[in-house]
């Protein structure tokens, strides 16, 4: 049999004559909201070198420790008499100048872990460094708000721990149309529509049916809600630009999603760091700036907060390969319109006071940032979601 003929005869092409009653109840998305604020979380994956991102150009130790890779004053975008941004961050400087950026320095956690995977887990689950949690803090936000999967979207193929809760999960979507189309075949429609009592079933089978129904209604909701709205065409033509374009399209079309997650990879610069980091930071800054402009044009920037983090920073002393090894505390960027504290949130790291491995000591626990966002921005009980109470910062 030819493949084409065979395909024609397969299940989905062949007749499924069952015509079910259309059950609207399953397809409806409840609109329970806890406010209309949104958070876009961005991870610079691999461990961005924060010290070469926000640079203390009057610090002798910085130049001593980084003979080959230190950035010279002339190469920096000065934001104060002592501090300059990496020259690739022209577009980020625009946000800085407008008061849309807050740079929080020395963010980390006690007993830092230097493995990418473990440290990413720690940031995603908001756990202590010796604690293994099986759900992410955004997932627990979904649990807490009893939200639909569409409330938190990761622009990727598979769902990170960050968006997995105990009872609720977020959704991974790169392209709403694909997801929508994959369950559009008459066969699945029949399976879904033929099972009226599925939602009553507490057992695994009920869970499977409910997940299928959820997936279909989420995909349908996202697809139909977003298909008309186009995003600006100015996004850089790369994966990260594409992710932000998708997020902007989702936000600007009024989707009820409150948390988005995307990432830019490649920051693990053990060798020949300079070119790689320059290229990646440029992608980051250009994409973010386009994203903010896009949101402003659609009057949505007021309600969006953008958080950028990396699983760790890098060692103060460079290595022998013109690169840097895994480090600890790092800077975090918060971007938004009405920030309470604009510009530098706190002082740059003290390069005189390093830990036993020559790494920076943290000053702010990353969970204080989460707690602040949950409490002041999303207005939920942060301690219930983070399993512990953390002091709040003053950036929003």
């Amino acid at each position: 049999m030819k493949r084409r003929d065979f395909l024609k005869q397969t299940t989905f092409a062949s007749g499924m004559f069952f015509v079910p009653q259309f059950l609207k109840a399953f397809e409806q998305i409840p609109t329970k909201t806890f406010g209309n604020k949104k958070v876009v979380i961005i991870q610079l994956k691999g461990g961005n070198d924060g010290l070469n991102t926000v640079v203390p150009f009057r610090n002798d130790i910085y130049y001593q420790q980084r003979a080959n890779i230190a950035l010279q004053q002339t190469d920096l975008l000065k934001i104060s008499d002592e501090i300059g941004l990496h020259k690739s961050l022209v577009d980020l400087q625009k946000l800085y100048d407008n008061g849309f950026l807050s740079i929080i320095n020395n963010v980390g956690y006690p007993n830092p872990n230097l493995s990418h995977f473990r440290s990413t887990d720690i940031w995603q689950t908001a756990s202590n460094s010796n604690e293994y949690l099986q759900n992410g803090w955004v997932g627990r936000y979904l649990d807490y708000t009893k939200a639909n999967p569409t409330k938190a979207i990761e622009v990727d193929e598979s769902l990170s721990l960050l968006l997995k809760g105990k009872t609720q999960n977020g959704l991974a979507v790169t392209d709403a149309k694909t997801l929508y189309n994959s369950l559009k075949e008459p066969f699945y429609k029949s399976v879904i529509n033929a099972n009226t009592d599925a939602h009553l079933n507490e057992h695994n089978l009920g869970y499977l049916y409910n997940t299928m129904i959820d997936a279909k209604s989420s995909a349908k909701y996202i697809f139909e809600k977003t298909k008309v709205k186009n995003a600006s065409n100015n996004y850089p033509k790369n994966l990260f630009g594409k992710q932000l374009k998708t997020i902007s399209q989702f936000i600007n079309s009024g989707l009820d999603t409150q948390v988005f997650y995307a990432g830019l990879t490649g920051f693990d610069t053990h060798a020949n760091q300079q070119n790689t980091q320059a290229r990646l930071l440029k992608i980051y800054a250009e994409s973010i700036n386009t994203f903010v402009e896009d949101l402003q044009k659609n009057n949505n920037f007021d309600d969006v907060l953008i958080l950028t983090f990396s699983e760790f920073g890098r060692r103060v002393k460079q290595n022998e390969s013109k690169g840097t090894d895994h480090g600890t505390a790092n800077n975090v960027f918060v971007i938004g319109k009405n920030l309470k504290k604009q510009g530098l949130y706190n002082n740059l790291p003290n390069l005189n006071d390093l830990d036993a491995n020559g790494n920076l000591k943290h000053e702010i626990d990353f969970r204080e940032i989460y707690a602040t966002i949950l409490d002041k921005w999303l207005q939920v009980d942060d301690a219930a979601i983070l399993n512990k109470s953390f002091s709040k910062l003053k950036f929003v």
Partner: protein
Amino acid sequence: MKAKHIQHLYNRVGFGITPNELERLSNKNKREIIDEVFTNSSKTSPLKADISFLKDIKPGDLKIKEKRQELQKISRKKIQKFSISWMERILNPSEVFREKMTLFWANHFVSESRNNILFTQNYNNLLRENAFGNFRDFTKKISKDASMLGYLNNKQNRKKNPNENFARELMELFTLGQGNYTETDIKESARAFTGYSHNFRGKFLMRKRHHDENEKTFFKKTGNFNGDNIIDIILEQQQCARFISEKIYRFFVNENINKEHVAAMTAVFYKDYDIEKLMRFVLQSNWFYDDENIGTKIKSPMEFLAGIHQVIPYQFERPKQALLMQRLLGQTLLRPPNVAGWKTGRNWIDSNTMVRRLRLASILLNNAAITYSDTGDEETMLTNLTTKKLKRKTFIKTKTDWNAFEKNYKKIDNKGMISLIISSQINKGTAQMLSDNLDIPKKDFCVQLMSIPEYQLC
């Protein structure tokens, strides 16, 4: 033994059963069938990677950075291949129960060696060889395994500067479970594991000058303990036998613990920590065949992929697509998410994996297209993102052995196929839909059965 029970047994100790095998076994009694299951898995066939590139390596070579990086790069490629061979093994096992058990242990003694194929291979075979062995010996071997020594930083655990990572996970995840030890127990036992290391071939070494020879107090006992002594003391706690029994119960019987059943298992296991005896006890128990345990467990991605293969053998034309499948379903072999392993049961299923699972039979068996965007992993972290395609639509190309299916299911009609393929109860509406479709071609009907939510259960 009832067909339904034989099917259940084979779903749990393997990945399903063919109609012929089912017929052959149906004349035998429970003990005979279980004996056969163990006999078939009595041998161990190690899984071999091609590590010839390491033949002439000398210890000094690894001190040269460029050389080391080059070897690591080759290793990472070989590890991908090894992951594919492991999956092929799971799909075509010579000792099926042993392979199933190996999957269990891979999610218990979780380790990973990203840059060393030799350590990866040895670790994987250690799980396979000890799958039915003695838990005491097994745990001791794991504590000295090169992959584990690296993964949980025990290599860095030295008298002067103890690293507690392994000691903590040994108790929290491998033997006792959270809350059954104190922080002091962790500190003291970490000292007993100081100086553990391995040579560049992965052979265990005790670095005497880094080992703490002083007295340690652990679970109220005091002495100059080494790691093996610590493991012996841990195994004196009945909690250890209970913890392992619970985990076995969740994997092989039911995600929801029945305390009575687990207590019975614990009593058996605590005697001598013999894994085979424990497994025989479980499979012999009447409760193993209770209705509440049949067709109620959510298949892991490997159980799902191997289950389809059991009915309709298929082969990926491009082996790398096997890795893609693993990734898209959320279980990349040799790449556990963290030391706690994969979260099982309902955690396998979110909207995305559900959609993929529902469509997988038609994708695998009909060479249908699957769309995914390649966001890459760490391997691609340093490559130029702009040169990569943003989204790919690819055909999963498989060779499907429909002849085997035709032969195996020759005597079975569509109606008969339902109970052979689906072990769970079927939702009323879906059952109706299936009965309306009984006259479609057998192949199509089979793909349909594999595309309903019920097929996710075993």
